[in-house]
């Protein structure tokens, strides 16, 4: 970023037809044909209709600044807008900000789009933006995103449409965070003050307005007739039905009573294949990871050779082929969908990533474990995919002389043990996608952080993390994070068996559905329901 450059937003967000539904249909038939470019454009969107979504979990409240649950964001991101957002190519573009100016490394000025109104009728003003961030910074809000914004020194609003952020230090992830829906939703002060919070009520500036929220049952959104993008959304509304049982969700999709499933197990494809009117949609990218940490406060994992033996002892390609049925990629903590920061799904250049049981045994021998090692792997049955992954890894590691006992723990306890390194040998959980390499890596690796998974101290890791956070030049940042990933792989501080993506199932009447990789845990994608329409 250089001084004083204006970034106007493109007038037409560029949609790639590659990601339209037709691709799903082609893949379903197993044809290796190129995407049918143009076929999506040939159809003019029809206006109207309610899109019915089968959701697996009820949102624990809708306040984007209070809920750390993805099931909340997946609704609130259609209700609220942000200053910035990501386009389908993951580029950061303006949302409520019409343009912005980088005054210097720590000062940014945003000009708001004119004529934007809240769902309850009032005009959006710069003061709303300031309030939104100050509410998150207020300790009383107890916002999970508070630490993200503590870099802000002050926010000024010289006039009704201008917001000036002044940061304490240069902070590279700032724009990514501003474009991440749940981190930085712009909220109205008057509604928060009237209702106490936004857990059950909502008023935003986004394409849909909240009509009804009955916990454990349904969330109904309707079209915002004053949404700032002309002609959007096409739908009259969205109805989320909370259906916890997967078999019931699939039955509802097959019967046509719902249009779209939120979460689809990678192995479920065979259950919907061949169902008439149902389309399977392949992942847009691999963003969701599993992470396995070692307890490095005691032997044997204090020894880098034992950790390396584990890394070389697992066969990542085989896990992807069996557990994900091929829908996944090789990964570090920064997943392939975040290329060029992440490795784009191959193991080249990553030490100890290639499967090599002989090398693993040699490393164990050098570490004094010629007869092999006995250890435990803690996992939670909450996520069946974790268990399946762990079972395959257990078999593979046995071939390298590492005898693993699987220990199944209830999710709440497993999460706590993982975060605090309070497990015996190893522990594995699904990790969430983060909007920036810094967010991916800093808190869970840095030795000064509370979390510091596995409790390791490495000055080189700390230094790279600090550099990545404060280096604003993109190419230099890429080099820093590539160094970090290579170094982490070499030291085998954590093991990342794979990155996976969401396989989604929808009715063939759903058109114009578009998502971008990432932003949701459990390998889900961000949905763009505003340009989705129903071909009725």
């Amino acid at each position, binding site marked *: 970023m250089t001084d004083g450059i204006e970034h106007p937003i493109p007038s037409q967000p560029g949609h790639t037809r590659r990601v339209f539904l037709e691709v799903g249909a082609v893949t379903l038939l197993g044809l290796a044909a190129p995407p049918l470019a143009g076929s999506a454009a040939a159809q003019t969107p029809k206006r109207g209709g309610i899109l019915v979504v089968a959701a697996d979990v*009820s949102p*624990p*409240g809708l306040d984007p600044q*209070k809920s*750390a*649950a993805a099931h909340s964001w997946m609704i609130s991101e259609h209700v609220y807008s942000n200053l910035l957002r990501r386009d389908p190519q993951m580029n950061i573009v303006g949302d409520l900000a019409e343009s912005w100016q980088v005054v210097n490394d720590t000062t940014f000025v945003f000009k708001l789009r004119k004529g934007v109104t809240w769902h309850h009728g009032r005009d959006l003003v710069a003061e709303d933006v300031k309030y939104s961030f100050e509410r998150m910074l207020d*300790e*009383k809000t*107890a*916002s*999970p*995103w*508070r*630490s993200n914004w503590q870099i802000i020194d002050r926010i000024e609003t010289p006039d009704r449409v201008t917001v000036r952020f002044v940061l304490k230090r240069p902070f590279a992830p700032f724009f990514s965070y501003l474009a991440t829906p749940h981190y930085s939703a712009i909220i109205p002060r008057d509604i928060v003050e009237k209702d*106490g*919070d936004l*857990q*059950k009520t909502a008023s935003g500036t986004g394409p849909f307005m909240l009509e009804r929220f*009955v*916990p*454990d*049952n*349904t969330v109904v959104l309707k079209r915002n007739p004053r949404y700032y993008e002309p002609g959007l959304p096409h739908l009259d509304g969205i109805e989320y*039905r*909370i*259906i*916890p*049982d997967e*078999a*019931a969700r699939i*039955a*509802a999709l*097959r*019967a*046509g*009573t719902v249009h779209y499933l939120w979460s689809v197990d990678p192995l479920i494809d065979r259950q919907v294949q061949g169902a008439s009117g149902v389309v399977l949609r392949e992942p847009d990218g691999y963003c969701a990871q599993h992470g396995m940490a070692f307890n490095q406060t005691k032997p044997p994992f204090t020894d880098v050779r034992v950790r390396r033996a584990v890394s070389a002892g697992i066969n990542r390609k085989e896990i992807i082929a069996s557990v994900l049925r091929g829908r996944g990629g090789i990964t570090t903590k920064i997943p392939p969908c975040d290329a060029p920061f992440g490795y784009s799904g191959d193991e080249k250049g990553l030490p100890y990533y290639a499967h090599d049981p002989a090398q693993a045994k040699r490393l164990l021998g050098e570490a004094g474990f010629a007869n092999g090692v006995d250890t435990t792997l803690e996992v939670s049955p909450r996520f069946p995919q974790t268990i399946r992954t762990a079972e395959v890894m257990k078999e593979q590691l046995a071939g390298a002389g590492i005898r693993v006992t699987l220990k199944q723990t*209830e*999710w*709440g*306890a*497993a*999460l*706590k*043990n*993982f*975060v605090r390194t309070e497990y015996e040998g190893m522990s594995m*959980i699904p*990790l*969430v996608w*983060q909007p920036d390499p810094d*967010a991916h890596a800093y*808190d*869970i690796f840095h030795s000064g*952080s*509370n*979390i510091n998974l596995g409790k390791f101290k490495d000055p080189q890791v700390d230094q790279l993390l600090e550099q990545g956070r404060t280096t604003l030049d993109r190419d230099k940042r890429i080099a820093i994070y590539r160094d970090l990933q290579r170094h982490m792989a070499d030291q085998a501080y954590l093991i990342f068996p794979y990155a996976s993506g969401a396989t989604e199932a929808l009715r063939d009447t759903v058109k114009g559905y578009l998502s971008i990789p990432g932003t949701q845990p459990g390998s889900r994608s961000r949905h763009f329901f505003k340009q989705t329409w129903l071909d009725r």
Partner: protein
Amino acid sequence: MTAYVGKRLLLLIPTLLGVSLLTFLLIHLIPGDLVTILLGITASQNEQTRQALIHALHLDRPLAVQYLLWLGEVMRGDLGHSLVTGFSVRDELVRSYPVTLQLALMAMSIALAVGIPLGVLAATQAGRPLDASTRVFSLLFISAPAFFIGTVVIIAGARYAPWLPTLGHVPFTESPARSLLTMLPAAASLGLAISAIIARFTRSSMLEVLEQDFVRTARAKGVADGAVVYKHALRNALIPVVAMAGTQFVYLIGGAVIIEEVFALPGMGRLVVNAIYQRDYTTIQGAVLLLTSAAVLVNLALDLLYHVIDRRILYA
């Protein structure tokens, strides 16, 4: 009688206190903590954020103080707010309990309406083919768990009768007819399983009664067959059946978790189980108070029902 009911109701107070204290201790003994679950792995690493939340939720106070704080709120008629969502616990109970009660009542009606006639039929036809076929019915529904039957109902419904609502919930107050129809598959899955047990109970109880002297006397003085079975025998055979059905009903009003999950019913079972997963202490406590009261009241009602069935049973 009034004194008996009064005494039973007064006993509710120590029962509730004991149960609430026990749940409070148990839920705090489960490993895992609310703050980590609430903040998720993304945010729980920040110590300041953690401490702010811990303080806001009073989790930094000693356990005894937390319990007394909660008890004080209950005394003032306030069940507090969910630690996870901030929703009023009372509102959550008011929202979810009618669903569970409706399901319990519908399931029990189906169970009794199917189970008792079937049991009587089996007893009067003992040893004949009809008896054998009711045995097959009973065995099938006793052995197949309700969630399996439920899943089959949903999948079959989606395939052969897609117009039939099988999932979700329409509040009774919104549209009674649609509410009953939507809940019917769930209530039937649950009710048929219980009807199988009731049929077996009714059969054996009836067989015993049909052997007794007064039945022989009734027959001897020329009472019609139907009247002997339904008027004389059934009434006497009903006591153990009611006792058993009552126990089943107490289970049902505690929330049929699995059926609620399968049929996407926003009932009490799901509320409580989710609250336990998330360590949402206030919601669990509120729900336990309500469920304990309901169980005590249903048991009392059952005891009074015995008197209605058999006037010889009196209360002191």
